[in-house]
Every structure is written in structure tokens, then in C-alpha cells.
């Protein structure tokens, strides 16, 4: 089926989210939609899927006028959306989540749900997309990647003719991304129409045949992926020329001096929960240590232990030479250990609060018990300028910020305490390429000033591009150490991850 | 050893019911009765539950106060278990010793209506008419919906009918709670500063009203007359000091009287039908009577020997019920 939209408009209050977007999704084609954070990608998809009504513009489905009243209405016409945000209800089972809006399909005459039938249908769909998830698993314990797979299964369970995927790969690790891309390829082969949003051009180029670029809510153009160069795409998205590599150059190794400073953190034979076993590592001032691994490989547990959120089961740590046994995150922050969690919306910042409130949350400037607002304004203003957070005033609510800028706020919150060790968990998840380049520049700049950084990421190029050294984790153990990350290849790392 | 008697009181957070229980405990000690006291905590449901629990314990007799129309239920429960019952304080609208409830052996309680009437009469007599020739009073009622509040209010109503020169400036609900009464009356008085007399539904209510008057720079007993009820120690003090014009009470003795009566019944001496429905005359108190009161009832309690009034212990005992009366 062909879905077209012409000249769509959508505003929220005074914000023009989408301002004249046209798009044509054709059968058997994967159509990528790219653009900066806040460019209007999600809003466009939501309108196509009936989750939002356009203020103006026309949509057609196979030539007929198309104006779905709701998501369910669109689904019955064969259009299904996987939202950017996670929409799994952790109170419900896997199968119930897949059929959440259609549970009545399985209701018997008494209104009781035939659970067995529902679960078998659900399991079949999960198997079809190659997700290794059992319908009997507890949704509360699944990781974000698995949850995304369930959402894709939900979309597929409506037997859509048109599938809209909004950053479905953002929370997936390397292996899961490959699986999803493979499924997309298969579905395309079966003649399905697919729209695909991602901030990773390599994914886009691997799977899409056509590509639409949006900028500031406006339509820039539609291209065949085979006919446009990656640099050109970036250029049209961001509106300026990006450097050849978005990763800043590593400091040149001066053969005379040791390139790196003293050891900041030393981890010896540490075990945490069930997730991590006898891990030893050290990280020096001025250095970025990368951690590669699939979800559940242990990086998250290691961070939790270093920042005092989880106790050590075994082993010991040293910080700047002294023994370090953080009893709580409070202790860790006071010792100069800053932590950027992987889930910015639930763990990184409070969206209802202002930029300033979030930036100085970890160490508010104070005169005794009194909050020193003047100092806070200076600190926040400096950070906003230094990191390049695009915001009208430091008192603006974070609600009005785009994903990339939110991420910068969380980074700023970590830097505001003047840390000696920075733990970064997927610092650029869902962040557009321009903002990503910015964030990388900031990270490298702070490392150069003597900060020790541990970077855990599911984005392979990012790890290779940013790390000085690399550790590969698998199922809680270190399986590989790479002393010069610049020389590593993805292939090499992946081999030790799975 | 002695019989077990179960008692359910509507609440324990008012002094009145504590005095009621204390007097019964004294009687239980003297008579050799094992007393089980349960608190309904101001909840009708808890009242029924407590009665059920007493029946399940197979107590030998029950004394309870059938607030919230729980009389029929309690009597039915006890009838099935063949347990004699005496009701106190709140008359259920059906008489004892009938075919329907042969186990309902007696009622002992005050006449709230009469008390409310006497309070009103005394109040009306003490205040002077205003410029328009009307005596202006304020009314602070007890908890809306309780039979006690309703009956006392009825007494006031009767008195009002006989006194066309009295005008009620306004009525508020004091909930039988001192602090609530204080706040409510304060507002009432603000709106109607011409009030010269207050009819307050019980002791705590009267105390709250007097506090409000004092805070307002008015002297209770001089600028504004207040009448109340219950004969709580602090109310007696207030009458003595002249703050409180009139108080009436003593009915917390009813529990003790019921205990003696029930004890005799359990011991096989039935209540004579003539004495099965007692409406206690209450003891009125005014300032000139305080000295007499303190002499006759040291500590507020009359001398009362429970064994003397029990026909089980004393063949020619006087009736169990003893009305508080001044000696002269």
C-alpha cells in the first residue's frame, strides 16, 4: 500500500512542530526520515499513524483520502506505529503488552481472556522477528532492547501493510540492531511499506532505499539513498558542514611525556550482584576508557557499583590512590565521581524543572543552608555557554528542550561538580548527529583538562571514535582488552562481545 | 467466681463515658463481677461488632448504649444466645420485658429531653431582653444526627414554644467537641453580637463557648449566660466560679445502676416489671448549690455501696437506681 502525505502542518501552541512536510511511502520500500532533534520526525509519524491530527495537509492511502481518527482506526486500515518512547506496561505480561489494545480478540463468551491462546499467538510473532523473548518472562525484568522488540511485535501483530518505526534502534545494542534491520529487510521483501527513523546514518544506509530530510519542521527533500552522499545528508540536516569525522582528534601522543596522567580509579577483582564478576581495571586522568558489551554484559552494574547505587559482592576499589567504598550515590558525588545514567528521562533529569535546577542539582552552591542563587546563575550560565545548550534562559523548563539539549543538560549536571571521574552510560542515545558531534567535543575537551572518563556505549563507532583504551565485556566478564582503541575494528570487538 | 458482664460504650474520648466506665468498674469490684468493656469508637459498625464479640464470648450479661439504632440488632443477637441485656442512656422506642425481646430486662437512662428543657428554662429566666424586647440566644448543638443531640434539642424546642420572647439568633454544630464548639460559636457570635445567652449541648461544648467568649473579651456569666450539661468536674468548677449559669447531669451513674440490676438478674433475682424502665431525673446545679453539691458528692460521686443496693447481697435492698439528690 502507498501512503502519501502532502504539506502537513502541526503546531503545539506557538511551536511549529511540522511546517509543510510531504512524503510518499511506497510498498516494498524502506523510507528513512532523518533530521535533527526536534525536526518534526516523530510528529510527522504520529500524524501518519492517527495519534495526532494534522492542523492542515492531506493524506491518502492507496489513493483514497486518509484521515484516521485514532491509532486504532489507523491500525484497522493497516498503518501501525512503533513510538519513539517505550510504551511497555510493566504491570502486564509480554503477551498482554502485545495485544494491549485488542485483548477482546481473545475474550470468550464470559468475557474471560483465553490466556493460553493469546500467549501462543504472541510467541509466534516474537519468533517471527527473531526475538529471543519468552512470553512467560516478567516484563519488569526485561531490558530496553527487549521491550523495543515487544513493541515491534505489537505493531506486527496488527498485520500492518505500513509499518512506522520511530527510533526503534536507539535503545538496542549492536546485536539487537542487526536483528531488527534483518527483520525490516524481510518485511520489505514481503512487500510491506516501512518508514524508518534513526539518528544513525549507517543504519539508514544499510536498510533504506529512500530518504526524506526534515529541518526545523520543514521538508528539505526526498532522495534515493544510492544517489546521495552521507556528507550531503548531514549537511542538509544540520544546515552546515560537519567536520569529516564527528569524533574529535585524540591528543597527539608526545613521545617525550607520558600521554596520560595518574591513575584516578582502580578496580580490583570486583564482583557485583549476578551481573559482574572479577573485573579489574584502571582509568587515568585525561583518559577515556571505553566499555563495549551487549545489554546485560555488566557495564551498567559496574557503573552502579562505582557510583554507590549497588554494593560490591567482592573486590575493592581505589580512588586517587585512597581506598574507595561508596555507600551511596551521595558519597560518590562528594568524592568527585559523577554519573550520567543511560535513561535520561527517568534517571538523568527532572523534565518539569528548569535548566538551572537540573544543572546545579548535584551540588547546589550555598551559604550554609541558604541556596546561593546568584552563584547558581553564574554556574549554569557558564555551563550553558560552554556546552552549548540551546535555551532561551536558564530558568526555562527542560520540557521545552530537544533530546540532544536535554542530554547536554545531564552532562552539564555532571560537570558542574568539577568531578575527577565521569561515568557515561550511552551519552548520545537518541541525539542527532550535530548535537552528538558537540557532545563528543565537550567530552574530549574535559578529558584533556585531566578528567578521567569511563564511557559505556552500545554504539560501536562511538566507542571506537572516542575511547583511548577499550574493554570488552561479555556476560559479566572481561573478554578482551584493547590498548589502542583507535586501531580497533568493529569486527574485532563484536567477536568478543557475543 | 463471679459472672462476666460485657459493656459497650459509644466512645471513650469524651469524659462522660470515662466517668460512666469508672463508676461501673468500682461496682464490678464490689460485686465480684468480671467486667469486659468495649469501645465502639463512635462507629455504628464497631458497636454491632463489639456486641457480636461479647455474644461469642458467651458473657453472662450485656449492658450497652444503643446509639445509632443498634438496639434491635444487639437484643436479637443476645436473645439467640439467651443473654440478658440492659440498655442505658438512649431509649430505643420499645419497652423492656416484652415478648419480642424477653432478654431485654431493663432500660436505665436520663431524659435528655427534660435536661434540654431545664437548661433552656434556666437560661431564658436569667437573660434580659434586648432593645427590641427579645431575648437573643445562640445554640451550639451536639453531633448532628445523634439521638442525644436530637433529644436535648427537642427539650429546647419545647421551652422555646413556651417563651415567645426568645429569639434564636443562629444555630451551629459543635460536634460535642470543645475546640469545634469554640470555633463555631466564635463565628456565630461575630455575626450576632447581640447574643446574650447560649444553650450548649454538653459539657465540652459549654467550655468551648466560654473560651470563645473570654477570647472575645466577654465575661461568661455576666455579659453572656451559658448553660451546659454533664456535670463534668470542670463544668462544676465553672458553675462555682460563676462562668457557667447552669449545668445538669449525673447520668453517668446509670451504668453502675444497670450493673447492680443485671447482677441480680444473673443471680436469679428478676427485675420487677415496675422498675424495668427508668428515666433518671438529673441533678441540676447552679452557683448557689455548689457548696451543697460538693458536700453531698465529694469528688462528684455520691456515696453508693453496690452491695447495699443488690438484693443478692442484701435481701431488703432499696432499688438499685438511686437518683442524685441534694440532701436538703
Amino acid at each position: 500500500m502507498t501512503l502519501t502525505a502532502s504539506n502537513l502542518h502541526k503546531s503545539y501552541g506557538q511551536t511549529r512542530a511540522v511546517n509543510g512536510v510531504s512524503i510518499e511511502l511506497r510498498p516494498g520500500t524502506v523510507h528513512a526520515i532523518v533530521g535533527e532533534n526536534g525536526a518534526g520526525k516523530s510528529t510527522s509519524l504520529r500524524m501518519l499513524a492517527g495519534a495526532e491530527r494534522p492542523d492542515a495537509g492531506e493524506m491518502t492511502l492507496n489513493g483514497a483520502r486518509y484521515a484516521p481518527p485514532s491509532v486504532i482506526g489507523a491500525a484497522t486500515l493497516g498503518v501501525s506505529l512503533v513510538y519513539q518512547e517505550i510504551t511497555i506496561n510493566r504491570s502486564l505480561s509480554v503477551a498482554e503488552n502485545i495485544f494491549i489494545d485488542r485483548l477482546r480478540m481473545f475474550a470468550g463468551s464470559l468475557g474471560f481472556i483465553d490466556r493460553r491462546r493469546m500467549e501462543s499467538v504472541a510467541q509466534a510473532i516474537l519468533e517471527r522477528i527473531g526475538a529471543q523473548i519468552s512470553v512467560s518472562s516478567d516484563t519488569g525484568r526485561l531490558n530496553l532492547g527487549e521491550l523495543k522488540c515487544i513493541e515491534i511485535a505489537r505493531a506486527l501483530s496488527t498485520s500492518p501493510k505500513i509499518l512506522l518505526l520511530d527510533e526503534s534502534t536507539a535503545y538496542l545494542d549492536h546485536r539487537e540492531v542487526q536483528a531488527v534491520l534483518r527483520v525490516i529487510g524481510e518485511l520489505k521483501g514481503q512487500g510491506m511499506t516501512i518508514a524508518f527513523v534513526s539518528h544513525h546514518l549507517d543504519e539508514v544506509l544499510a536498510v533504506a532505499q529512500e530518504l526524506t530530510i526534515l529541518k526545523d519542521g520543514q521538508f528539505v527533500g526526498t532522495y534515493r539513498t544510492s544517489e546521495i552522499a552521507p556528507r550531503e545528508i548531514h549537511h542538509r540536516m544540520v544546515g552546515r558542514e560537519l567536520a569529516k569525522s564527528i569524533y574529535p582528534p585524540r591528543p597527539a601522543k608526545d613521545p617525550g611525556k607520558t600521554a596520560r596522567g595518574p591513575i584516578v580509579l582502580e578496580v580490583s577483582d570486583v564482583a557485583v550482584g549476578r551481573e559482574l564478576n572479577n573485573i579489574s581495571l584502571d582509568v587515568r586522568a585525561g583518559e577515556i576508557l571505553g566499555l563495549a558489551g551487549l545489554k546485560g554484559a555488566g557495564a551498567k552494574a559496574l557503573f552502579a557499583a562505582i557510583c554507590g547505587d549497588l554494593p560490591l559482592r567482592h573486590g575493592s576499589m581505589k580512588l586517587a590512590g585512597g581506598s574507595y567504598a561508596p555507600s551511596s550515590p551521595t558519597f560518590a558525588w562528594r568524592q568527585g565521581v559523577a554519573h550520567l545514567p543511560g535513561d535520561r528521562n527517568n534517571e538523568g533529569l527532572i523534565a518539569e524543572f528548569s535548566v538551572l535546577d537540573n544543572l546545579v542539582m548535584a551540588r547546589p552552591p550555598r551559604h550554609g543552608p541558604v541556596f546561593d542563587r546568584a552563584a547558581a546563575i553564574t554556574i549554569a550560565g557558564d555551563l550553558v555557554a560552554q556546552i552549548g545548550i540551546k535555551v532561551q534562559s536558564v530558568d526555562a523548563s527542560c520540557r521545552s528542550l530537544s533530546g540532544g539539549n536535554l542530554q547536554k543538560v545531564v552532562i552539564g549536571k555532571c560537570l558542574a561538580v568539577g568531578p575527577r571521574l565521569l561515568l557515561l552510560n550511552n551519552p548520545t542515545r537518541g541525539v542527532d548527529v550535530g548535537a552528538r558531534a558537540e557532545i563528543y567535543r565537550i567530552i574530549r575537551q574535559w578529558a584533556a583538562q585531566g578528567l578521567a572518563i569511563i564511557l559505556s556505549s552500545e554504539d560501536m563507532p562511538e566507542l571506537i571514535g572516542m575511547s583511548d583504551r577499550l574493554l570488552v565485556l561479555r556476560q559479566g566478564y572481561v573478554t578482551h582488552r584493547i590498548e589502542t582503541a583507535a586501531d580497533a575494528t568493529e569486527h574485532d570487538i563484536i567477536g568478543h562481545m557475543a | 467466681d463471679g459472672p462476666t458482664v460485657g459493656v459497650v460504650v459509644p466512645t471513650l474520648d469524651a469524659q462522660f463515658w470515662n466517668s460512666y466506665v469508672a463508676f461501673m468498674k468500682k461496682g464490678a469490684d464490689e460485686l465480684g463481677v468480671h467486667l469486659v468493656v468495649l469501645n465502639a469508637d463512635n462507629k455504628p459498625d464497631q458497636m454491632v461488632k463489639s456486641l457480636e464479640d461479647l455474644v461469642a464470648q458467651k458473657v453472662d450479661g450485656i449492658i450497652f448504649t444503643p446509639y445509632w439504632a443498634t438496639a434491635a440488632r444487639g437484643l436479637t443477637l443476645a436473645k439467640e444466645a439467651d443473654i440478658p441485656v440492659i440498655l442505658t442512656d438512649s431509649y430505643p422506642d420499645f419497652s423492656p420485658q416484652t415478648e419480642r425481646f424477653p432478654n431485654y430486662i431493663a432500660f436505665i437512662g436520663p431524659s435528655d429531653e427534660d435536661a434540654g428543657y431545664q437548661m433552656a428554662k434556666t437560661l431564658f429566666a436569667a437573660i434580659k431582653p434586648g432593645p427590641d424586647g427579645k431575648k437573643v440566644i445562640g445554640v451550639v448543638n451536639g453531633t448532628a444526627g445523634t439521638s442525644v443531640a436530637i433529644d436535648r434539642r427537642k427539650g429546647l424546642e419545647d421551652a422555646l414554644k413556651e417563651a415567645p420572647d426568645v429569639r434564636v439568633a443562629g444555630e451551629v454544630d459543635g460536634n460535642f467537641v470543645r475546640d469545634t464548639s469554640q470555633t463555631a460559636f466564635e463565628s456565630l457570635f461575630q455575626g450576632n453580637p447581640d447574643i446574650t445567652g447560649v444553650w450548649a449541648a454538653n459539657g465540652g461544648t459549654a467550655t468551648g463557648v466560654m473560651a470563645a467568649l473570654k477570647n472575645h473579651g466577654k465575661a461568661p456569666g455576666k455579659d453572656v449566660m451559658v448553660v451546659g450539661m454533664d456535670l463534668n468536674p470542670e463544668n462544676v468548677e465553672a458553675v462555682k466560679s460563676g462562668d457557667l449559669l447552669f449545668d445538669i447531669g449525673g447520668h453517668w451513674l446509670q451504668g453502675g445502676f444497670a450493673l447492680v440490676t443485671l447482677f441480680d438478674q444473673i443471680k436469679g433475682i428478676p427485675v420487677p416489671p415496675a422498675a424495668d424502665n427508668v428515666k433518671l431525673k438529673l441533678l441540676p446545679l447552679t452557683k448557689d448549690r455548689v457548696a451543697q453539691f460538693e458536700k453531698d458528692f465529694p469528688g462528684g460521686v455520691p456515696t453508693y455501696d453496690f452491695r447495699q443496693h443488690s438484693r443478692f447481697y442484701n435481701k431488703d435492698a432499696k432499688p438499685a437506681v438511686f437518683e442524685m439528690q441534694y440532701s436538703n
Partner: protein
Amino acid sequence: MPNASGEPIRNAGRLELIKRSFPLAMLVLLIVIFSILSPRFLTFSNLLIVLQQGTVLLVAALGMTFVIMAGSIDLSVGSIVAIAALVTAFTSSSLGAAAIIPAITVGAAAGLVNGVLLAKGKVPSFIATMGAMVVYRGIVLLFTRGAPVSIEDEQFLDTYTNRTLGIPHSVIIGLVLTLIAYGIINRTVFGREVRAIGGGERVAILTGIQVARVKIYMYVLLGALCGIAGLLQGARAMAATAQLGEGLELDVIAAVVVGGTPLTGGVGSVVGTVLGVLIITLLSNGMNMTGVDPYLQNIVKGTVLVCAVFVTIDRKKIGIIK
């Protein structure tokens, strides 16, 4: 990860089971203590009394389980019970046993008002039902002017208070309603939707659940159950009064929470609620049976309540505790 997570999940299953059995353990502990203190406690007749005493609380708590599972609350249940009892009292003389129809109707209507205030008026349920509690109670007062209305219709009383095969009818009604509530919560689409709302309302909206409608239905359901509870309470007391059901809301909420349904929503168990009701009812029955000083009873009750929740609450599932 399937391999890695296999172990913990199976272990979690066992832990889960232990966790779930805490309310039961609590109940057993109470029974043991009271049995030691009073020989009359653990008799068939007393246990029947406990069941009878618990029925009103149970019926209201079944409905409250839905509301709390959805993350909301209802403080007006006591007042709805009073209104329903009043309507029962007014109609039982003419309708007899069929007085259950107006009782349920008025309960459901009161629930409807609450539901609409929350779902359409967007007034938080705590406040909406706090206001409703005061207003409904006021209505009862206004109609009765405080005078109790007695219930004397023989057919009515026979139907709702007699026994069959030794079991009081009210207990049978409670049992049947429990089974129905169990079925609704665990087996029906509606039950899943209520759960989904409690688990994450925003997600529920995004996934196409008609949140407002489900919320209204759930308040209507609670209201209807309070209607039945009011009827049973009226039948039990043979009268309706203005004070009936005062403070019931706290016992109802406590029963649900002690049973393991957290106030944060998303989780809910009918079996737990039944256990919670039994714990609360047994505690008061046992203290009365063993003659605990009435001045001490509230202190004991409050302490046991907190301890019970301290022990039974499943902190893993709740996450943040507010």
C-alpha cells in the same frame, strides 16, 4: 541475555511465592496468638462471626482493589455505604429483598459522580472523593435529620441475614462477589486495562486504552459494591443511621494495602484483599474476645497495621515508595 536471566527469574519466582505468603503468615500468627489467649477464639461459631463481621469491609474492599490497582483512591466509600443503607431502609418495607436494586443503583450513581470528577473533571481522586465523602454524608444527614431509619421487613431481613446450611447469607454473598471480582481482575479485558492504567497511565493512553471510560467504570463498580455493602450493613444493624460507615474508608484502604496491593498501582490481588480484610477483622474480634484494655486497642491496631504493611509490602515491585 536469555541464558543470563534464566536463573534469576526462576529464583525470583520462589521469592515471589514467599513474599506472597506474608499476609497469610501474618494471619496465621494472629490466629495463633489469639487462640492461646482465649479458648473461645478458635471455634467454628466465632470464625463464622468473624466472616460475618468482615463481609461489609470485604465487599467494599473488593471494589477498592480495582481503584487502588489503577493508582487512584476513594475516600468516600464510607459515605456511599451510608447512603445505600439509607436507601435500603427506605425501600425495604415496600420492595423487600429487591431493595438491593435501589441500593446498587444509588451506590453506582455515587461512584459515577466520583469517576466523572476524576476522569473528566481531572480532579485528583484523593480530593474529589474527599469532597464526595463530605457531601454524601451531608446528604444522608439532610435526609435523616439524624434520626435512624429502622429496617423491619421480615422478607428482607430473612434474605440477607438468615443462614443456609449454617452459613449466613451475607457470607455467601461476600464469597460470590469475591469470586466475581477475582474473575474480573485476573481474567477480563477490563481487569487488564485497570492494571495497565495503574502501571503507567501515559503508556495506557498511547496504546489506545480508553482510560477515562475505564476509570469511570471502575468507580461505578466500587460504588455498586458499596451499595451492596450498605445493604448488608443495614441488614446487619437492622437500621440505617447518619453515622453508619464513618471511618470505613481507612479500614478499607488498609485492608487492600495489607493484602499486598500497593497504593502506587499496577499490582493488585483479590486474594490479598481477602487476607487483609481477615487480618483487620480478626484483630478487632480477637482483641475484644481476649479483653484487651479498650484504651490500648487503638495503639495495638495502629501498630499491627504498620507492621503488617512493613512485612507484606513488596518493595521490588513498587520501586519508589512515597
